[in-house]
């Protein structure tokens, strides 16, 4: 959770069917907002999950993930971010 109730810059989706639970994204995440589920998915893997807050939208979890679509990273749309903070979002990684 970012401080002072500001809207998070990023969001994260993990496809529970694609994730194989290698945990590379958990290791890679700078703000440490990814964790492992306790439950197994139907292929028998524990999977990564977003802790629910604090994502910066940096995308490094996506790049270290070996599965094509297990992770999707979203960023706060520029108009929302701009109106909230009056700053430009960074143009990419």
């Amino acid at each position: 959770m970012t401080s002072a109730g500001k809207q998070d810059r990023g969001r994260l989706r993990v496809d529970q069917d694609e994730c194989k639970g290698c945990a590379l994204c958990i290791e890679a995440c700078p703000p440490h907002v990814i964790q492992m589920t306790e439950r197994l998915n139907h292929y028998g893997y524990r999977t990564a999950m977003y802790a629910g807050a604090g994502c910066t939208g940096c995308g490094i979890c996506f790049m270290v993930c070996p599965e094509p679509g297990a992770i999707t990273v979203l960023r706060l749309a520029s108009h929302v971010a701009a109106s909230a903070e009056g700053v430009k979002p960074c143009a990419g990684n």
Partner: protein
Amino acid sequence: MSNGTEAEYEVTHGRPQAFYENFDRKGELQHQTHYCPGCGHGIVHKMLAQAIDELGIQNRTILVSPVGCSVFAYYYFDVGNVQGAHGRAPAVATAVKRSHPQSIVVSYQGDGDLSAIGSAEILHAANRGENITVIFVNNAIYSMTGGQAAPTTLLGQVSTTTPAGRNAANEGYPLHVSELLATLEAPVYIERVGLGDNRQVAQAQRAVRRAVENQVRGLGFSLVEVLSPCPTIWKMSPVDAQHWVRDVMEKTFPLAVLRDRTKDVQPKAAPATGPALEEIPRILGVTDEGEAEPSDAQAKGGVDLQVRVAGFGGQGVLLLGEVLAEAGLHAGLEVSWLPSYGPEMRSGTSNCHVRLAREPIDSPLVAHPDVLVAMNEPSLHKFCASVRPGGWIFYNGETVPEECERKDVHILARPFMHVADELGDGRAGNMVILGALLEATATLPQASVDAALGQLVKSPRWLTLDERALARGRELLRESLQEVCHEG
């Protein structure tokens, strides 16, 4: 927790377009790759797919899959796909690219494939500067086959075929392919990157994109070597394997840009388009154009002349036969010319069989010649007994050795090379003999011989010399017949 609604967010990192939506070819678990958890291949696949998306080249891209864990890369990439044999992807990619220069050809290979069995193919593709992109995934082991040693296996590293660890005394040292290739002139871009931590991953992504972009720009051969984790075979957790890349593997294989000439080279020119279809027969020289008018110089009557010409390479043996055959063709006969010679191009034994006939020629091999031309004594010895009774022997020598003398054939023994010397060049001795042969057999009209000579001898000096040599040969033959008559 994040506030706001999902509608306020837009996807910045998602499944690349260059991947299929579903992996239908895979058969089962169609939305997952076949790679193990934490495998570097999946990461490199994603980098390549992103580069294809960013460069807008999905339709033009052709991926050559290797043999190894990435053998099924074609399950995933929604591009043109060719799956090749072990180690041969650079050869396959070479021909694909040369067939369609507008295509973007990526050879995706592992370290067993590229650095061991395919070491020749990668070296030569790089040395030719093929305008292709090679993605070289190095995990220091044969993974798909269960963990045998590769040329890239680290010293001391345990594998199923180095159970006590790789020992330089027995298996040699880890092979540094990228450094080797960087000694070549042609490659424009070679970089070794790793997947050992976030920083390395980000650099690897940039390098993969550059290697593809270089090809799009037509710059030439680019290769990215990616040090990549194999948690399963290394028997490590994915995270430990990632660290091992950074902490251990990188010490043997330092990360570096080993070649970057992208700023110095000019884009390769597009290959010239071919000629119009109608032009091709003329280019090949097989058109009817330029064909001589049907000649009056037709050989008369039934003909079946079988000739054997034998000597050493360089004595004009083959050319003598060729002029004879060409003249026969000009005179409307069926002809054949068959050479047989030793492995040496010069100074080895050399001989040819020539047949001229009215009827289609059954065998071009001449076992019992009507005429033997022997340019030297060994050839005379070898073939003199084979000449048909009533036939001719032309021997390039002063006197016929006793054991080769025959009463039932005509023999003309002269130092033909010396005769030619007197005309200006001893090498025209073959044409002196041919003149004598033509005079003796009286099969071919002179016009056909002239036509053949004109076709085969391009140098005006030699043409004049050969014509004089032919005439001299005819004279020699006539003189020798008079001698025989006088003696008779």
